[in-house]
């Protein structure tokens, strides 16, 4: 495997760590040098980052029913005999 190929393999391994905010300083430095020197690595980063952002933006959050908190507080009161604050 050429050094270019092995760098690409390493880049793919490090990419999720960078996107998830888990990369250490050495990994960040390697990542930065790769996206500066390897157009395919930059493209891959941009695509993976877009997917992560897309999930955040479009994955619908379910809102709790309005009476849920009240029901929990009432259950706590009756189960544990504590008074309302």
């Amino acid at each position: 495997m050429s050094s270019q190929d092995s760098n690409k393999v390493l880049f793919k391994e490090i990419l999720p760590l960078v996107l998830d905010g888990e990369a250490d300083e050495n990994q960040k430095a390697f990542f930065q040098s790769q996206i500066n020197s390897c157009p395919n690595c930059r493209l891959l980063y941009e695509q993976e980052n877009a997917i992560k952002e897309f999930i955040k933006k479009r994955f619908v959050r379910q809102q709790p029913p309005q009476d849920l908190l009240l029901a929990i507080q009432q259950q706590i009161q009756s189960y544990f005999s504590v008074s309302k604050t």
Partner: protein
Amino acid sequence: MINAPPIHRSEEENLQLFNREFVPHIDAMYNFAYKLTLDEDAAKDLVQDTYLKAFRFINSFTEGTNAKAWLFKIMKNTFINEFRKKSKEPPKIDYHEIESTYNSDEVDEDITIDLRSEAVQDLIGDEVTNAINSLAVDFRTVIILCDLEGFTYEEMSKILDIPIGTVRSRLHRARTLLKQKLSDYARKMGYVNNS
């Protein structure tokens, strides 16, 4: 997280702590419960059970530590122990079976989908919700914890009781499956990925 040495507080102090530390996470808890059960009534029950357990074990909670992760761990355990067997979730497939299936050479690990343009994102629309919901619950869970709730790998490891290496591999598999589903959908909608 639930095994810390008990701290003694009055019931009044516990209730104040509960309202201050746990109640603000109710939206995230309900959302997680819904994503686990895929059923509104079951999600409501799961949130109630989780909060009741959190109150019951509140003396094991250390103020100032990560209340949200603590609640997520209780919910995950409650779901596994009590809800999974009676929920509408299809019978659980052995996780290791799934993992080895997707580790095989038949799966294209390099699959990608180009969502950089708004036009493609609009084309795919809310399909991401359907695609994530259709993943097996273990894969769905890591996507929610990481990408939606922003937990660190270490927090996820504690919530799920799995090593960090397993968190990483499970996330990788989940994302590969998700990309596969979104890519198939985009193709069906007439978008051809030119990469």
